[in-house]
């Protein structure tokens, strides 16, 4: 079943209600039990003194809690027939629902002929990564940005996603707590304390005019982006493996290098009205934003410094005045190979292609607000446009050429039903944008179907299987996939299914599978159930687990 958000909140609160035993008299027919053992998901050791919370799926505020015994056993008695959401909480462990994967978990069904008394609830231990960031003088680096990326499979794709980010304190210390087991990259970016960074300097011209009055060269330094265990080359970076509960110490020494200086001519724009610049360094799938020190002169020139030489994506926005005297905002994005001294002219920028269009519901009415998202298939970069009350949208910064998945966001229960385009190739819910301006016509729909079903192995229900509804041409329709997890009686439900042809799969070990890759899915498709979905239909499926 799909876990509702409130479950997490309930798990959090379980501690307190544990102090108040729920000893209501059993109502008639309340004759069933849920029992099992809570164990450490890594070591298998039984976990005593943990709090388990149980609530009927249909009435989640009717909670009761128990505390596990010395052998990790738990028991809920006097239950009515039905499905229950079970969650566990213990200090040193990630609070989670029973058999939880992403936002999915297994509800426990109780009733005649259902075994609900031999559950094994695996709770994942949590760990901390902590340490001190120092520089080559052994001085603590305060306010360093420390980013933690986790390697994991999410939405059927193995990737590296940012888990958390924080800044070091005045002693250079940082600490990431409550981390689930897994493999992590730790990345540090910082500016040496002695680099003047917090104010915009207004005059590079006079610096240039006065040779011999430069700063102490020892001050013109920057720390390169540094990976655990203290390396600046991603190839030499090591992952931090977290398993059993504990603290993983990760101290890092930052070695400064001579800072890069990039001069940018702003052509006819006077940058003194306001400039913001961001540099993004992308290593593998990890993107790190770095704020440069910005100086500008009256001669339409900007200097960026305070960062190490390297490859960056530069995002620049200038609020200035045009020749007509109007206030204009210009944004630029380009790749930058910043050596120690580089000159850049904005003409070298890769311009985005104008992308505009309209979105309307298939019922003919206009959507209430909402946004469109274009996500590039390969880089994963996303751009957004707000849908106006008239149903129109415009990607104001333009869109770089590429192949994009289209999705509608911030409109609950509304989905992209169809796409037509001028000057772009549409495949499924994917659009390829070239060098010409594109017009998109998006049809949105609320007409979705629901699939209920049960997962079986040799006629018996299978608990905890991943249900995956695979659209035709999966590569071009990532937004049409639907997922669930089977409950202890094998039941599942898929909601908000758009009309079309699908194959429904039940995969016993699907959670670590990169199912977004069609090649990975291919061997399983023949073992699934083909289903043709009509708008507002209701379906009942029996799936064989694979």
């Amino acid at each position, binding site marked *: 079943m799909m876990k509702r958000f409130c479950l997490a909140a309930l798990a*959090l609160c379980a501690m307190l209600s544990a102090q108040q035993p729920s000893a209501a008299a059993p109502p008639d027919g309340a004759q069933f039990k849920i029992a099992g053992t809570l164990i450490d998901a890594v070591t298998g050791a039984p976990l005593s003194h943990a709090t388990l919370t149980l609530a009927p799926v249909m009435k989640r505020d009717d909670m009761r809690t128990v505390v596990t015994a010395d052998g990790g056993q738990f028991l809920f008695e006097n239950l009515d027939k039905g499905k229950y959401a079970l969650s566990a909480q213990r200090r040193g462990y990630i609070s989670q629902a029973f058999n939880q994967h992403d936002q999915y978990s297994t509800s426990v069904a109780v009733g005649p002929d259902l075994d609900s008394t031999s559950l094994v609830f695996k709770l994942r231990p949590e760990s901390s990564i902590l340490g001190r960031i120092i520089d080559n003088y052994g001085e603590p680096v305060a306010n360093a940005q420390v980013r933690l990326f986790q390697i994991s499979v999410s939405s059927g794709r193995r990737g590296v996603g940012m888990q958390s980010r924080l800044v070091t304190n*005045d002693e250079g210390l940082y600490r990431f*707590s409550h981390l689930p087991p897994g493999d992590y990259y730790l990345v540090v970016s910082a500016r040496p304390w002695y680099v003047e960074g917090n104010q915009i300097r207004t*005059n590079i011209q*006079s610096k240039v*005019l006065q040779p011999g009055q430069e700063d*102490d060269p020892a001050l013109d330094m920057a720390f390169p982006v540094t990976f655990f265990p203290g390396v600046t080359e991603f190839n030499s970076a090591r992952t931090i493996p977290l398993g059993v509960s504990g603290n993983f110490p990760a101290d890092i020494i930052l070695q400064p290098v001579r800072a890069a200086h990039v001069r940018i001519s702003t052509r006819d724009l006077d940058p003194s009205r306001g400039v913001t610049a961001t540099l993004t360094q992308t290593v593998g799938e990890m993107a790190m934003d770095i704020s440069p020190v910005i100086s500008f002169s009256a001669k339409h020139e900007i200097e960026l410094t305070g960062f190490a030489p390297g490859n960056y994506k530069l995002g620049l926005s200038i609020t200035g005045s045009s020749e007509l005297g109007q206030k204009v905002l210009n944004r630029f994005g380009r790749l930058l190979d910043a050596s120690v001294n580089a000159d850049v002219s904005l003409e070298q920028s890769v311009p985005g292609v104008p992308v505009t269009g309209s979105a309307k519901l298939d019922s003919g009415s206009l959507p209430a607000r909402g946004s469109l998202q274009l996500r590039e298939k390969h880089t994963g970069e996303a751009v957004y446009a707000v849908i106006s009350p008239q149903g129109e949208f415009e990607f104001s910064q333009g869109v770089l050429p590429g192949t994009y998945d289209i999705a509608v966001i911030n409109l609950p229960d509304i989905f992209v039903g169809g796409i037509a385009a001028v000057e772009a190739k549409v495949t499924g819910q994917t659009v390829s944008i070239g060098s010409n301006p594109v017009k998109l016509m998006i049809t949105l729909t609320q007409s979705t179907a629901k699939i209920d079903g049960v997962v079986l192995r040799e006629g018996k229900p299978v608990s905890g299987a991943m249900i995956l509804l695979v659209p035709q041409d999966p590569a071009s329709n990532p937004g049409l996939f639907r997922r669930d997890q089977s409950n202890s009686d094998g039941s599942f439900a898929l909601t908000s299914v758009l009309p079309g042809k699908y194959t429904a799969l039940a995969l016993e070990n699907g959670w670590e599978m990169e199912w977004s890759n069609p090649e990975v899915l291919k061997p399983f498709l023949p073992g699934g159930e083909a289903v043709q979905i009509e708008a507002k239909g209701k379906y009942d499926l029996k799936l064989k687990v694979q």
Partner: protein
Amino acid sequence: MFLRIQILLLLLVTASGQGGLWAQLTGFGSGVGSSDDLPKFKVEGTVINAVTGEPLSRAVVRLEALGVPRAVFTSLNGRFEFSAVPQGSAVLTPRKPGYMVSERETQFSYRIAVDASTGPVTLRLLPQAVITGHVEDSNGAPIESAGIKLWRITVRDGRQRREQVAGLRTDEDGNYRVAGLFPGRYFIAVQAQNNLLAMTSTAKAKMGYPAAVYYPSASSLSSATPVQLSAGQVSQADFVVGMEPVFTLSGTVSGYGPGQIAGIHITDLAGEQIFPLTQFNQRTGSFEFRMVGEGTYNIFASTARNQDKSQDFLTAETKVNVSGNIKDIHLALQPGITIPVAIRFESTQQQPERHGTSVRLIFHPRDANSQSPIQAQDIYPTLEPGDGPDRFLLHNIPPGKYSVEVHALKGYVRSVLYGVTDLFRDEVVITRSTSILPLEIVMRDDVATLSVTIHSNDANLNGANLNGVLLLVPDGAPMQPPRVNYAYGMGVSSFNGLAPGDYRVFAFDSAAGIEYTNPEALAPYAADAVTVHLAPYDQARVQAEIVHTTE
């Protein structure tokens, strides 16, 4: 501690009057000119620890001259040197992690004159103070993510204030750390988060963490013990936070119309907002605060202030004593009090100028039970035109006791009366229950001027090297703050637009930390004050000896 202040201001201004001073100050740093034609000089000096006097190596010194910043590291013996600095003035700023420029010294900043006579400069950095601590529950288990607030008792504009200087949460082990603190008096509070289930539970006997525990274990700021930090001190402040019975407060807010948006919040007696689970029904006006511990609180309701002022800003306030659940609390929103103001000009000129709204009023709340760490927000009402040329209105003054500060923007204020209350001398109580009186202000234009020349016993610190803070205290007007002037290096400073009368002049090297709006705070320096009588149109001159103050 007696601090001998280093005078580092060497402005290159001949002592010819304040016009020159102002030209120098306002021109400073704003122009970016070419320095090619100017003679160049060396600027050198040392950065030291202000407490121990030890030189500080690997500090950065920034020098800005003619708008151009430069920076160098200090050497092992704390020394720094800038070559070829153009003649004129420059500002030096030292920096090192763990150190700060003291508040006394930021008053003047390290401005120096750059010329042939520029000698070595000593820059002082104050080591930071730190507060660390641990928060645990009554079973000794650490409380993670507990909110920590830190206030410092400071003196700004001669008034003691409580300023929040940090807000953070404890880590996984219940620990916290606040660094970068100035020496001074601090209050610390912790608020442990109550968990959601307890907040939403329907169980009868409820236990929860209190709204705030003030160090060491007080339930209110007024009974808390301050932590006194000296420069460089690392202090530990631990808390044990136990659960206690908590209660539900409920009631209604009335008096607002369908087009108005009302809001409600609850504070402790120190004026700090607490955050129980709060429900407010905009349509019915019913409200509920859950998980409020025993104690006394203020509940406030108000309407959103709308831009066009077409609707009144409504407020209501009630004090509750919580020792059990309280129902039927009623808050009736009412408009703030509008006070008419009449301004009368007594001009001595043949053709008096039109003055317009030429006064500014600041209302300083004075709680009757006020303890020093408790300080409400000052009110800066705007004078809006009334029903006559010299009649104005002050809107939305909450009921209360105030000292009212009055400034003339032209001429001077001769007197301010609210009924028979002389606002120069006394506090005023404004209530809804009695009839609202007009505030009667009399202004005149027969202003006097006073020039003060400061000098020092220290022969090295006279003439152009001398700076200080001058306070001019009018006699018989304890509710009015002294006039304050800074004398940068000049040794001479002038006060204009003075009312005729008797004054006392205080000359300090620094007024940082002196609550000079409180006559008692100036009492220890009474013997050093210079008294002066000003007649109408006087242009008087006096001399004052610089008094070294301690922080």
